[in-house]
């Protein structure tokens, strides 16, 4: 009996062990089925773009009036160049112009309006000003009016003592004199029609809109109020550090709302600034706040979507998922948001070209809350261009949810190799992404192993509609099949005086020409635009790397040795005796140019500016946008004698494949993945300026070369040096002929650069050490050969 009891106990233990094992394994399945049931949940806000009145391209303010039916908008009509007021009685679907702005601030060309606010009662206030150059001050005046009674000036004076004291701190303890005045920069109305404003010192005020008197001050010691919104009788203030709530009547700070702080403040940068501040600093997208329909309720909108929160409450509810619509597009900037009576949200945004759009979000109870189809897109590094493309694709395909995963987020210590191993594990387990953004990945290895699907059909279908840059399109063609395609590309280029450019026929000739330039200009500290060895090597790498790979797949020691020897000669044309100032060329010049010139370290933009200001004589870089040609022709005009050409190297006519994409051959969403790739190659996606290369689609190329400036006008840019000197430069857009010549030349580029990250990193690491004098050319070549040949042998 005793023995029997033991047996039973043993059996029970064994059974429980088995049960634990089995249920442990089954856990994941259960999760999956939960997911499925989540997916079948219904109801989602759908996005619809409402048309703006003809000519309206720039929305300044949007407000729902207290009658509940009228939406009022302040905007600019670019056709008439006048500012005006429009009303809508159908929640923003159609608009009717009600009036223009008062005479003195009506014309866009004559006066700059900094901020416009519309009260729920219909009154409009504006802060406007103009640069008074002789005093270097921004004079700001204020005006308010309603459509019936006409306008009146508001004499609002922001406290000046505070401005001086703060400036005094910056000036090293001594009070600065003749400094700019503290002024109210932004205006806004509360839901009761009271006027609020914030000044250039980061304080907010309740303002009497009759007398301009400051009634209450909302200030946070040591913090700068960047954005504010009145919600009921409370004021929500976003600072660079946190979210502070004030009582509107008393001006006293109220209890901290932890949930709101967690939302805005959870992610901090290295300096401890909140995500909100980072985004504001970046100047792309920000956060919009809006009063909710219930007491103490508010909405906020950012790139993640639209959220609802009850002040003091413990939850934040996502109303609109930004990753399913345009809100997730990194190129849009938020202007204003209103929650409407029909429970819709109306959000005014501006796109990357600064054109305003009105996006309406309407709740559809018959639409699945998350689309049934999920398309996984994976990239090693974050790619704003792909995010833009996803937003466009999402808009066109509301039934597909694109899940964009980034391997290297920067939030952890994951290396590229670690991320690739994780990716490979997932792909082999059948849980991998559907679409791969192949930059930084072993593309050839993936093709060899059959991991990438044949894209020939997709590309052929697209080719019927548009023309591609053929050589770039066929970068990864094997036996007539295309397994991956670069969606963008760059071209290594040089820029300088005509003779030097023409005489630089290969890398050796380039080194000789630059040495000749140095001999002719011995007083010039810098001849070329890079003083750092790493930066020079990165630029020279692409135009030379194809020559190093031999037919048997190994590296050519001779070619590599020649490359490093000549790269060292090129590096030495700059004077490196004072390396403490090594960052001079790359960091001390700030450039502000309309049109968004690309001045990445590997681009041509920065060098062009320096040629223009005669800091350097020759520019090396990777040309990857039309604005870089604009930089070049502007520089050419400025110095009188200039030219550009493709970078002469050990290889000729090289292009750099960028943002290459492929489809995982194990993907179960092949159709959606192909649709996504087609979208990436479409003119609409390709024309968006992603700052990451020329589009491969020639129709898109044709569109992006359109002059962003008004016909006949030039844009002025300012270059400021470390010493504070400002140089004015004339920024001109190339002619159609110049662009067509560029296009024709781009079409001749037929050699893809070696984009293998292992080879590139190894050459640049060892080469940098060599150029800096840390090792001889022979040692550097030996080290590179050893490591890279080992890699190639694997």
């Amino acid at each position: 009996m005793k023995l029997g009891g033991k047996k039973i106990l043993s059996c029970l233990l064994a059974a429980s062990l088995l049960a634990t094992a089995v249920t442990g394994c089954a856990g994941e399945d259960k999760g999956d089925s939960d997911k499925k049931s989540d997916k079948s949940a219904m109801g989602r806000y759908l996005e619809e773009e409402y048309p703006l009145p003809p000519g309206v391209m720039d929305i300044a303010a949007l407000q729902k009036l207290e009658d509940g039916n009228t939406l009022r908008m302040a905007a600019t009509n670019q056709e008439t160049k006048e500012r005006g007021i429009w009303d809508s009685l159908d929640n923003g679907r159609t608009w009717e112009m009600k009036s223009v702005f008062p005479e003195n601030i009506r014309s866009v060309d004559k006066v700059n309006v900094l901020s416009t606010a519309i009260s729920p009662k219909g009154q409009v206030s504006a802060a406007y000003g103009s640069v008074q150059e002789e005093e270097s001050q921004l004079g700001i005046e204020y005006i308010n009016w309603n459509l019936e009674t006409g306008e009146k000036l508001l004499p609002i004076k922001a406290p000046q003592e505070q401005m001086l004291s703060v400036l005094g701190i910056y000036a090293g303890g001594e009070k600065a004199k003749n400094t700019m005045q503290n002024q109210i920069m932004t205006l806004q109305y509360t839901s009761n029609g009271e006027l609020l404003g914030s000044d250039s010192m980061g304080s907010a005020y309740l303002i009497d809109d009759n007398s301009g008197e400051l009634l209450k001050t909302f200030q946070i010691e040591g913090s700068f109020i960047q954005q504010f919104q009145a919600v009921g009788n409370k004021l929500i203030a976003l600072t660079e550090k946190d979210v502070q709530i004030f009582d509107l009547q008393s001006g006293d700070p109220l209890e901290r709302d932890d949930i709101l702080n967690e939302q805005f403040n959870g992610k901090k940068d290295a300096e401890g600034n909140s995500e909100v501040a980072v985004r504001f600093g970046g100047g792309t997208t920000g956060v919009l706040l809006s009063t909710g329909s219930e007491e103490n309720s508010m909405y906020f909108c950012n790139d993640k979507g639209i959220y609802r929160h009850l002040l003091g409450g413990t939850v934040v509810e996502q109303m609109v998922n930004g990753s399913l619509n345009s809100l997730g597009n990194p190129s849009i900037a938020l202007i204003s948001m209103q929650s409407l009576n029909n429970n819709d949200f109306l959000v005014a945004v501006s796109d990357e070209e600064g054109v305003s759009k009105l996006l309406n979000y309407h709740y559809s109870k018959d639409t699945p809350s998350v689309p049934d189809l999920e398309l996984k897109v994976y990239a090693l590094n974050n790619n704003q261009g792909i995010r833009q493309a996803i937003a466009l694709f999402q808009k066109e395909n509301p039934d597909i949810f694109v899940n964009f995963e980034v391997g290297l987020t920067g939030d952890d210590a994951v290396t590229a190799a670690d991320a690739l191993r994780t990716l490979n594990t997932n792909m082999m387990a059948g849980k991998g992404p559907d679409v791969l953004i192949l930059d930084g990945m072993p593309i050839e290895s993936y093709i060899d192993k059959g991991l990438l699907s044949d894209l020939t059909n997709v590309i052929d279908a697209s080719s019927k509609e548009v023309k591609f840059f053929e050589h770039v399109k066929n970068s990864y063609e094997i036996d007539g099949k295309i397994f991956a395609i670069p969606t963008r590309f760059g071209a290594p280029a040089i820029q300088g005086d005509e003779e030097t450019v023409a005489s630089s026929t290969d890398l050796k000739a380039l080194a000789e020409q630059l040495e000749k330039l140095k001999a002719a200009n011995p007083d010039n500290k810098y001849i070329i635009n890079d003083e750092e060895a790493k930066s020079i090597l990165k630029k020279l790498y692409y135009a030379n790397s194809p020559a190093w790979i031999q037919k048997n797949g190994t590296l050519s020691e001779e070619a590599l040795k020649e490359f490093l020897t000549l790269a060292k000669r090129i590096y030495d044309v700059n004077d490196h005796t004072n390396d403490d100032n090594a960052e001079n060329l790359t960091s001390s010049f700030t450039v502000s140019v309309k049109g968004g010139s690309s001045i990445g370290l590997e681009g041509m933009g920065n060098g062009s500016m320096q040629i223009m200001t005669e800091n350097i004589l020759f520019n090396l870089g990777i040309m990857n946008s039309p604005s870089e040609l604009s930089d070049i022709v502007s520089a050419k005009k400025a110095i009188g004698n200039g030219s550009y050409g493709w970078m002469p190297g050990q290889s000729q006519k090289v292009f750099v494949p960028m943002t290459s994409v492929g489809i995982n051959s194990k993907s179960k969403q092949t159709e959606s993945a192909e649709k996504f790739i087609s979208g990436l190659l479409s003119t609409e996606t390709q024309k968006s300026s992603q700052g990451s290369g020329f589009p491969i689609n020639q129709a898109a190329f044709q569109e992006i070369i359109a002059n962003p400036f008004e016909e006949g006008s030039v844009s002025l840019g300012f270059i400021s040096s470390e010493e504070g000197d400002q140089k004015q430069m004339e920024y001109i857009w190339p002619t159609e002929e110049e662009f067509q010549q560029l296009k024709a030349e781009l079409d001749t580029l037929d050699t893809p650069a070696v984009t293998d990250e292992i080879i590139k990193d190894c050459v640049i690491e060892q080469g940098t050490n060599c150029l800096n004098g840390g090792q001889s050319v022979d040692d550097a070549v030996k080290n590179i050969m050893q490591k890279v040949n080992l890699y190639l042998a694997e």
Partner: protein
Amino acid sequence: MKNKAKFTGFFFILPSLMGVSVFVLIPFGDVIRRSFTEAVSGIWVGFANYQTIFNNAAFLLAGKNTLRFVGICIPVLIGLSLFIAVFLQKQLKYGGILKTVYLVPMAVPIASVVLMWKVLFDPNGLVNGLLAKLDLTATGWMNSKYAFWILVFSYLWKNLGYDIVLWVAGLSAIPDTIYEAARVDGAGEWACFTKITLPNLLPSLYTIAVLSFLNSFKVFREAYLVAGDYPNDSMYLLQHLFSNWFRELSLDKMAAGAVVTSIIIFIMILLLQRAWDMEK
């Protein structure tokens, strides 16, 4: 009744066997299967993957380096640790403190070891600084043939204390009375060591050799963290190769390499066991 007794042992190891099966045996079976197929498509390729790896210069180099590393490190570690253990056993006064001193490297985190390596062997590091003061030529240690010996030294330094403790445990198990009896018979220190200590330590030798062998694979952590995926030729080990193959999705070659390596390790352990059995 006899049958019952026969199965009792099996039931005792059943839970553990289940774990080993799920986490080791079954996955290894899958590795064997994959070694005969293509990486992604799973198409049967016979011995092609084995042919590939035996013609692969990187695999041959890594295999050679790994064998060389094990061949040098294990005998040196076992001999040195035994010598020190015997010495410590005789140090009645400071033996305990010295044992602790030898164990300290085991407590040093890998990150600190790697930092120390970098401080010492960087081209601008302490060792080169010292050489410069002595008017000697500086060397890029981690990019030279010395890299292998730095790895050997690191392994010995890290594992010496562990092996000493194992030897000391073996030594403590030898009764003092045997030594006393031998000394009465006129045996000297050397005779006592060869005739009493060594034979009595043989059971420990097997365990220590296998543990040292398995620990030798862990030295990859230091090598990887200091020199990355592609270190100097001399310290490029099988683990580097496997790690890189995994990154490149060369699962076919990796599977074949893993099977070959497992067979070699298995044979080596069997040989050790055979040697041990023969000595017994």
